Structures are given as structure tokens and as C-alpha cells.
């Protein structure tokens, strides 16, 4: 609500992002930089769900679908085109288009949000089962063998228009980080635009939005497609960070991860999911060093604990605590009351950047 305070945070985020963009490759080892590229892809993916769920109120449990489709489409197109310039565009468009088609069936069928969550998750799992079966030589798109369980090697990005000038891993990091920064501020712009404010209005009260004259189904479909496109972009970056795309991008673990980033970071904010993705990526990498505690177990416990005890997520909770400490009683009271009145709908209502 406090636009001035929000803007100063945005400036701070921009500065930190820019320092990270320029500074990280200077001080970190190559191995870390490559890992970071993957983490950035994850953060962009988290951002896409933060937009769709946190602002549009669309409960998508299968954001991994568009992520995976983006990754596969990028690889398949790059192999067929013999360069990545257009493959990136194709990947983003295919992911967005698939989201639009799926969205058409769900929003125009007026599926309720709980169903929507389960349906999107199911679609992702079907893709997982499907892609695992594509190991034979008959499963190919153009020149690209889909490779079943083992997936396909991802051609690295090249300089647009010059397929022989292939980017180094450091360069890919720059591209990924720039994409994240652009994606983030693009989303900030979007939620402040008329379109974004209508999305929030629909989240708040669908019937009222309709009576005021907004076509709720179309609005949701468009937002969902934008979210799908961003997730697809994340898929392209992921394919570059890991160097390979396998059916695992669609699996249950991946789908759960995205939800957990957003829950932990906080719905109704854009920076929350991004920080959630980075934080959990770091946590899981550290856990990867040992074998006694299973990742699933840790993530499951985190999810249950947050749903039961910190339903708003870290960033909104910290903002609340901060406000309370600063004696902004009014603002705190407002949050408390809102929470009670809405019960299950824990969607956060302020537009923090």
C-alpha cells in the first residue's frame, strides 16, 4: 500500500541484482557459477508461480509442466534449427501456448481452484510418464531423439544470429541473471498495470470483477499464459545450466519444489518466491553433501510446518513484524483481521515488490 516504501525496496533489489550480475563471475569459481545459473532458472520459475498464484489467485500445482515444455521445446528446436536464436523464442511461445490451451479448458469450464491445482499437477505427471516412454528410435521430433528416461543433451546458447559463436558458461550466467532481473521488474510492472490490478481484483472477488464488466475467464487465461511463458523461459535457462533435459523436470518432486518456494517465500509478493527458490536451492545443495537425511523428508517437513505455522510465508511475515515493531499498529491490525475473515484464503493482499 505504501508506494514510496515499496519503490525504495525495488531500487535496493535492483542494485543488489545488478551487483550480483556483474560481481558474481569475478569472485566465484566456474563450478559455482554454473550451479548459480541453475538456481537462477529456478528463481525465475518460482517468480512465474508467484505471479500466477500470489497475484492471480490461480492455484497451479503443475507449473513444472510449462517449465519442462519450455526446456524440451528449446532443445528440440535448437537441434532442428542448428542454432539457438529462434529456439529460445519457440520455447517460450510453445510453453505459453500450452498454458493458454490448458487454461482455456480450466477457466472456461469454470473449474474451482482446488480442482485446478490437482488437474495441473496431473498434467505434469502425465508428461513425466509420457516422456519416460520415449526411449525408442521412433520417438523423435525432426532430428531430435527424445531419449526417454535419459533425456536429451541441451545445445548451449549462442549469440543471437550467429550459431557458431557459442556462449561460455560465464556468459550464460549473465544471460540468466539478466533474464531474472528483467523478468522480476517486468512482473512488478505487470502487477502495477491495469491488467495486474484486475488480476488481483479477480483474486479478491471473482463475481464482483465480472459484474464490473471484466471477462474473468479471459483475464485468468492471459495471466496463466504469461506465467507459462516465464516458466518456459526458466526451462530454457535450466537446460543451459544443467546441459541436459530429462523427464525429471516434470516429476512430482519438481512440482512440489516450486510450490514450496512460493509458500516459504510468501504469496502476494514477487521477491518472496525468488528468495525462497535461492534459499531452498542452497539448502538442498548442502544436503546433497550427505546421505543420512533424505531431501523429500526435509522438503515435506518444511511444507507441513509452513502450512500449519507460517501460512503467509517468510517475506510477508517479516514485513508484518517490521511494521509492528515500528509501531504501525493500524497496519498490523488490518492484517490480523484480514487473516481471520478470510480463513482458508490466505492470499496476501498487499503488493510488495
Amino acid at each position, binding site marked *: 500500500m505504501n508506494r514510496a516504501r515499496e519503490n525504495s525496496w525495488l531500487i535496493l533489489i535492483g542494485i543488489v541484482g545488478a551487483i550480483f550480475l556483474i560481481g558474481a563471475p569475478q569472485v566465484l569459481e566456474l563450478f559455482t557459477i554454473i550451479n548459480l545459473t541453475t538456481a537462477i532458472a529456478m528463481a525465475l520459475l518460482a517468480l512465474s508461480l508467484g505471479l500466477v498464484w500470489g497475484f492471480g489467485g490461480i492455484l497451479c500445482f503443475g507449473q513444472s509442466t510449462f517449465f519442462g515444455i519450455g526446456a524440451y521445446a528449446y532443445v528440440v528446436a535448437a537441434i532442428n534449427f542448428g542454432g539457438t536464436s529462434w529456439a529460445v523464442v519457440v520455447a517460450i511461445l510453445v510453453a505459453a501456448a500450452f498454458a493458454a490451451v490448458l487454461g482455456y479448458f480450466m477457466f472456461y469450464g*469454470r473449474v474451482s481452484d482446488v480442482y485446478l491445482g490437482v*488437474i495441473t499437477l496431473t498434467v505434469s*505427471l502425465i508428461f513425466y510418464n509420457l516422456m519416460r516412454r520415449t526411449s525408442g528410435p521412433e520417438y523423435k521430433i525432426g532430428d531430435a531423439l527424445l531419449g526417454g528416461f535419459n533425456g536429451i543433451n541441451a545445445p548451449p546458447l549462442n549469440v543471437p544470429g550467429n550459431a557458431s559463436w557459442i556462449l561460455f558458461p560465464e556468459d550464460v550466467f549473465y544471460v540468466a541473471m539478466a533474464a531474472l532481473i528483467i523478468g522480476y521488474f517486468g512482473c512488478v510492472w505487470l502487477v502495477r498495470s491495469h491488467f495486474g490490478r484486475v488480476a488481483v481484483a479477480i483474486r479478491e472477488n471473482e463475481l464482483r470483477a465480472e459484474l464490473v464488466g471484466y471477462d474473468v475467464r479471459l483475464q485468468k487465461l492471459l495471466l496463466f499464459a504469461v506465467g507459462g511463458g516465464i516458466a518456459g523461459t526458466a526451462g530454457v535457462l535450466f537446460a543451459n545450466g544443467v546441459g541436459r533435459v530429462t523427464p525429471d523436470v516434470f516429476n512430482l518432486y519438481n512440482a512440489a519444489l516450486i510450490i514450496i518456494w512460493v509458500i516459504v517465500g510468501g504469496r502476494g509478493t514477487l521477491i518472496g518466491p525468488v528468495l525462497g527458490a535461492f534459499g531452498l536451492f542452497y539448502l538442498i545443495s548442502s544436503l546433497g553433501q550427505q546421505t*543420512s*537425511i533424505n*531431501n523429500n523428508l526435509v522438503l515435506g517437513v518444511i*511444507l*507441513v510446518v509452513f*502450512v500449519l505455522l507460517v501460512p503467509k510465508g517468510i517475506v510477508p511475515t517479516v514485513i508484518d513484524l517490521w511494521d509492528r515493531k515500528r509501531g504501525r499498529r493500524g497496519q498490523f491490525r488490518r492484517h490480523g483481521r484480514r487473516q481471520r475473515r478470510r480463513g482458508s484464503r490466505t492470499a496476501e493482499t498487499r503488493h510488495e515488490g
Partner: protein
Amino acid sequence: MDLYIALALQIVYGIANLVLISLGLAIIFGMMRVINLAHGEFLMLGGYTVVISTNAGLNIWLAMLILAPLVVGIIGVIVERVMIRFLYGRMVDTLLATWGLSLVLIGLVTTIFGAQTATTISPPIGAIQIGDFTSSGYELFLIGVTIILSILAYCALKYTRIGLIARGTMQGAEIASALGVSTSRTYAITFGVGAAVSGLAGGLLAPITGVLPSIGATYIAKAFITVISGGTAILAGTLSASTLLGGVNSVLSYLTGPTIGEVGLLVVAIVLLRLMPQGITARLFRRSL
């Protein structure tokens, strides 16, 4: 002729398989409007119960038909008491919490038994001969179990007190809760029964599929589709959706292979969703169980 019998059997088995893996989920959904995302892990736990107890020397029939539903049913009741009951009325949070539970269960089983299972068990019934074709006797047995299970569910819904409450809830959750019947005990029992049915299904399928900590994921996609396509009527929904989707899947799989079968199932489900967003039983068979 024998070919047609074998093919028909295959289709019926495809349908029975869907009913089996979906029924536990449908019971919990129909009565509580809770979609249990840990459903796949309940199946997985049923499978582990059977494999471990059989390898420990227990009779496989006892393990499958008694122990698996018992163990998973008790786990279900515990889960309802310590987690789900705090979240009633908060549909989205319930979904998320059961998803967390799903991950916890996968993690626990992996930690205890490892990511792969070393030992598997073989079906206790061998192949049988239909003319020139052999058919799996165990699949026939599963078809029989599914039929018996459906009849039991029908009787339970029709003639027991909890069945009466269930029917009330299926007609409209508000009415049932206005009558004050949705006591927490009913919910705990429902969740337990749903879990037990899932445990039974997981146990029965273990000899065919083997067990893995992550095997739940291979079941739940189909189970979710079936239950959502079916709608809130527990039995009619599961049976009609299984017949449609299982039929399409089996026929397409027979004609072109399992990959297209899977795609066909998804496409039919999504088109169905556009035509009947509340599921088959919201449009057809309205007053059914």
C-alpha cells in the same frame, strides 16, 4: 473368439485397475471434499507392508488382505488426528499439507528401506489358459476383488450409519454439516477407511508393480483424473469414470501402445472437464451413490 475374450479381459482389467487405485481417494474426497495428495504414498505403504511382511514369513494372502489395509488405515487415522483436522474448511491448505505429508512419507521410506527395493514378491496365482491365449490369473483375481470391494462399498453406503452420513455429504456438504452430523469422529473414520482401501489396493498391486518409495507418483495421476472426472458420488463416479477412461486407455494401448494410451486418457479427461466441470456424476447419475 479367444482373442476377443482375452481383449475384453484386458479392458475389464484396465477398468478394475483404475477403480482399485482410485477408490480410497474417492471415499475421502466424496465425504470430506479433501483431495488427499498423499494418496499415492498410502498405496506405496500398502505395497511395502505386503513385501516386508511376506519376506518376513507371513502368508501373502494375510499380508495383502488383512495387514496392508490395517496398517495403512491406522496411519490414516493418525494423520487425520495430528494434521488434517486442524485444516478443515481450508481446502487449499489441506491440499498443501497432504502434499507435504506425501514428501515426508517418501523421505521416511527412502531413509529406512533405501531408494530401491532389493526384494520383490511374485503374484501368488500363475497364468491361466484361454484357448490359444494365456491370461494372468492374478489379474482375474484383482478384477474379482474390485467387484467385491465395490459391492461392499455399495452396501456400506446404503445400509450403515456412516454411509447415510456419506450420502448426505455427497448431496451437499452444507446440509450435512448443518444437521450436525459431520463430527470429527466421522471424519477420522472416513479418512481411516479411505486410507485402508488405498493400503489394500497398494498391497494387491505390489506383486505386479514391485515397490519403490516413489511409486506413488505413478498411481496418483490416474487416480486424480478418475476421481475428478467422476465427481463427488463415490461409487458411481469412480465406476463411470474408470469405465470411460480405463476403456479408452486399454483400447488405445492395445491398438497403438501404452504411450498413446496414456495421451488418450489425458485428452479424454480434459475434454470431459470442459463439458462437465463438476464431474460425470454432477450431470449424470445424480442421485447415485
